[in-house]
């Protein structure tokens, strides 16, 4: 039996995308419309994937990282002004 020590341990380190590009799971896609946005940040607050970023640019108050947005639609549902549309993915 070898005497060499090289522990194989059940450890992990923080990493983005450990379940892959979960954007591929999306069935419906949230589409942001800056014109309707009232900058309330609720979408940012409630996005379970933390893929909404507040950028507060002129052309967009928020951005959505579609690599990981799972398309749950919460952002759309919580948006008071319906500034986020849900459209079928791939259309």
């Amino acid at each position, binding site marked *: 039996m070898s005497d060499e020590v090289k522990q194989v341990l*059940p*450890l*992990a*380190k*923080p*990493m*983005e*995308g*450990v*379940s*892959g*590009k*979960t954007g591929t*799971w*999306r*069935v419906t896609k949230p589409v942001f419309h800056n014109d309707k946005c009232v900058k*309330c*940040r*609720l979408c*940012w*607050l*409630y996005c*379970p*994937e*933390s*893929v909404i970023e*507040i950028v507060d640019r002129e052309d967009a108050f928020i951005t959505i*990282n579609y*690599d*990981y947005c*799972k*398309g*749950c*639609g*919460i952002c*759309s*549902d*919580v948006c008071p002004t319906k500034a986020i549309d*849900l459209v079928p993915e791939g259309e």
Partner: protein
Amino acid sequence: MMVLNIKELPQEKYLLSGNAACPGCPEALGLKYLGMALDDKVILVVPAGCSSVIQGLAPGSSFRFTTLNVPFASSDAVAAGLAAAKEVVGEDAVVIAWAGDGGTADIGMATLSGAAERNDNIIHVCVDNEAYMNTGIQRSSLTPYGAWTTTTWTGKKERKKELPLIMLAHKVPYVATASIAYPTDYIEKLRKAASIKGFKYIHLHAPCPVGWRFDPKYTVRVAKLAVETGMWILFEAFNGKVTISPFSRPYQNKERRKPVTEYLKLQERFRTMKPEDVKLIEKMIDDAWKTLLKFT
């Protein structure tokens, strides 16, 4: 209780994107807000449950919290040991047992109750999606009356165990309820809990689209309706003295509660309910308020 403003919330992520949670997952929300509340001061102790899966696959992890996964029945005891170790070695840490309703109220009940009685210096967060979701939607003691699960095909016949009340009866320094729909309230409660020495219990209501059978976009809506119908009461209690939290205060007044059917009808799990069941639930809501208000 002062209510936090959204703008004051930190932007750091502790639950990373690309995790294994289902779309619209309430536990993901609970974890996200936990990070906002306490950032890297936390050591999470996580028994089996959806939150052990959400971490994703090693050697990576979607959790930036230091996280110890543990057997299903063991979380509070492990947490108590960890907290003791940190105390003796003189390290700062907020040790949190983060368990589902099953890990809290069923297999973990003795451990929870034991840690509460010993007043171990930990926070227990019960992330309550009202069933064993990780194994595919089986009833737990926190599944509400009438709900379909894969072990109660015709609806659960027993009522939801009133765990917040039971924990109140344990006379621990801090007991609070929270909801993923009211993150600021929840975050404040976490921060308060972290500032108190001894055993702290936070019960987080976490509607699960998969197990409750609703469209994932409604996670927050359903959670909100639970509060607005008075089904779920936000409160906190220091040493047994209850205060109804601001977001629930309106619903002390029965008139102001939304009809409970608004809550039920969104969820397919309640589809087998009969009108008399709904009556029963309305009565349970009244009773729960009455009982709770005795402790204010």
